[in-house]
């Protein structure tokens, strides 16, 4: 799985400089946490990598491929990135199966493969009996697993997590953390994990990048 490189990225929102001259390299298959207070620009970095924002200057490489640069912009859906959004952002008008089908169809998976992939994902995420349910009919943990299944559906090379534990109760937090670590280790997906919780960052990640006012303060290896 690829290494990721941010090079001299800057992004301004009206009068706020959210990210300034930010450079960082993320190693293949590692789990890196972006740790910083709210408003420090860590979510913006995630969105820049996903292609949901364009920087004012600087470039981003995924592996050897320039995805964001002065004259280059690869659209989000061509970056092979899965993302767990804060509050999940499940589609309220789609069933669990509908979510997966919509994503797989959008990525031109043939009919038969869609069927088997959906069955696989529902099985591993323990959602087989909830395939026809809408988000409002699901429990918190089930919603979480739908979001993960949706992120994994396209066989992503990179997984982005935006405060994935923020809206969960304690019980689910532990299970979710285990799940994320398992995915990272088993599938060797390069994972970027955004959080404002110091303890959480050091518990989960291989390395922690400390972000302050849109700049990188330092990178710390964890004992994990």
């Amino acid at each position, binding site marked *: 799985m690829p290494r990721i490189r941010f090079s001299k990225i800057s992004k301004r929102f009206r009068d706020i400089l959210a990210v300034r001259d930010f450079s960082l390299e993320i190693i293949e298959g590692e789990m890196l946490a972006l740790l910083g207070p709210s408003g420090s620009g860590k979510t913006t970095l995630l969105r820049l990598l*996903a*292609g*949901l924002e364009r920087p004012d200057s600087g470039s981003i490489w995924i592996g050897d491929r320039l995805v964001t640069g002065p004259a280059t912009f690869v*659209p*989000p*859906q061509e970056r092979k*990135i899965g*993302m767990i*959004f*804060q*509050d999940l*952002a*499940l*589609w*309220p*008008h789609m069933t669990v199966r509908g979510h997966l089908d*919509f*994503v797989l*169809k*959008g*990525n031109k998976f043939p009919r038969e493969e869609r069927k088997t992939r959906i069955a696989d994902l529902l099985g591993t995420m323990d959602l087989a009996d909830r395939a026809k349910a*809408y988000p409002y009919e699901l429990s918190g943990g089930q919603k979480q697993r739908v979001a993960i299944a*949706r992120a994994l*559906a*396209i066989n992503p090379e990179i997984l982005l997590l935006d405060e994935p534990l923020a809206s969960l109760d304690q019980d689910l937090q532990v299970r979710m953390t285990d799940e994320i670590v398992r995915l990272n280790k088993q599938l060797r997906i390069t994972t970027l994990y955004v959080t404002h919780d110091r303890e959480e960052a050091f518990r989960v990640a291989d390395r922690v990048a400390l972000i302050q006012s849109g700049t990188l303060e330092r990178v710390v290896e964890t004992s994990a």
Partner: protein
Amino acid sequence: MISSARTARWTLIIGVILFGVLVLAPVVWMFASSVSGDQGLSLQAYRQLLTSARQWGLLRNSLLMAGATSAAAIALGLPLAFLLIRTQLPLSRFFLPLLITPAVVPSYVFAMAWIHLLGKRGFITVYMERLVGLREPVLNLYGMPGTVLVLSLSYFPIVMLITCMALKAVDARHEEAGMLYVGWKRTLFGITLKQALPASLAGGVLVFVLSLANFGVPSLLGLHVYTVEIYSKFNAFYDVPGATASAFPLLMLCLLALLAYRLCLRRRSYVSLSTHARRAGLMALGAWRWIGFAVCCLIAVVAVILPVGILLRQAGGLSSYIKAFQSAGDEMANSLLTGALAATALTLLGFPVAYLVARSRSRASAAFDFLAFVPFAVPGTVLGLGLIRLWNRPGAFGLVYGSAAILILAYAARFFPISEKGLALGLERIDSRLEEAAAVSGVSWFTSVGKVVLPLLWPAAAAVWILTFVFCLGELSASVLVSPPGFTTLPVRLFTLMHYGMNQVVAALAIILVLFILVPLLLLSLVMLRRSGGRRAAY
């Protein structure tokens, strides 16, 4: 708190009684009396419903007209809403009020204008003949195509407005999740538009009901539908049972469609309650925005500028307007007077019901919310017929029937949903804790309503008054049946004159009616804009 609950219960009872007398009584009475012949119960009047070919023709025409109109209204309203709300359309602020205009100007005025444009001696017809020697009109305005054209150009803003609200509610994060996995095209169709679609369909159903109930347009353009049949049966032959028999299927169709509308909206609400929900950004469109701009311009020209322009042209100089004032001054005064009285009555009557719907969470109030909506499904001609059958009798009833009071009753019944909904929306914005604070301080319910609620509610009440006032000013389909001898309103006068042929004075009268309607609305929106602007500045 017991006394407060009791007051609330009385409000409910008074509301139900007033509502029943106003709206339901005429219609219920009409059908009750239609099945009671001289020898007891009889379904004689309804026998022909199933047997005559004429009835099947009416059904076919009515359904085809309403179905085609609502399809066209969705086809126009949905893309327009998207352009206005979600794209960087040039001048979008200026398009919104312009494109709403057709919904507030009475549709029969547009029918008149289109006769001037596409009729046998119409402006476009004559011009085309001169230009390319086209002998036939560009589009045969009379009959189905013309009626559907005029109605869909009048009603598409309803779909547009409802879709605008739904599009504003789409959560930006739902779209971003789509962008990440499937790209913008599939996101646009699979997420954004899909979430707005139930609202557009609900708007389409509303248009369906409004088209079924419309009398002026099919009557002027000679399309034989239920409303026209009811009017001609009653007016030409004074055949009340026959008219009632046609009113019955029309009312049933409208009620069914209304039920479908409620189901459409109830199924699922996609409104995001999350605290992280964000308004989605505007699409840049690039060069496409000029194509969007051209589409908006084209629709604004066809739906508003062309029809109003031809009426202005037809009316000619100032002398036509002076003549119009001279010849129809009484009717104008009548319309303004009955409209003002009815708007006042509606604002007062709407309050108890709105209060109940907004403040109590009981099942009764939910049922009432639906009931208050029912008048919307009672076409003006059906209501008019019901009012005639209920009030046209000797004694005190006859006094009401023979006076302008019957018009006020008709208006109040027709536009009750507007006043109830408007006031309920206003009340929902006033925190109920303000009243609870008053109650805790030992203030009676009436004082608390008078000193706390009403001072805060007046902007909503003023808006409701103006809205109901302009709708009353344009009301034709019930007025044309119930207006008492010697007391004619402006729309009825206009309608009668149009049948005698078009001239400058008729066009001038139409322009005057449009001004009567647009000027108060313009003032209202200016005041509301200033208020919201001032409030924003204060924060």
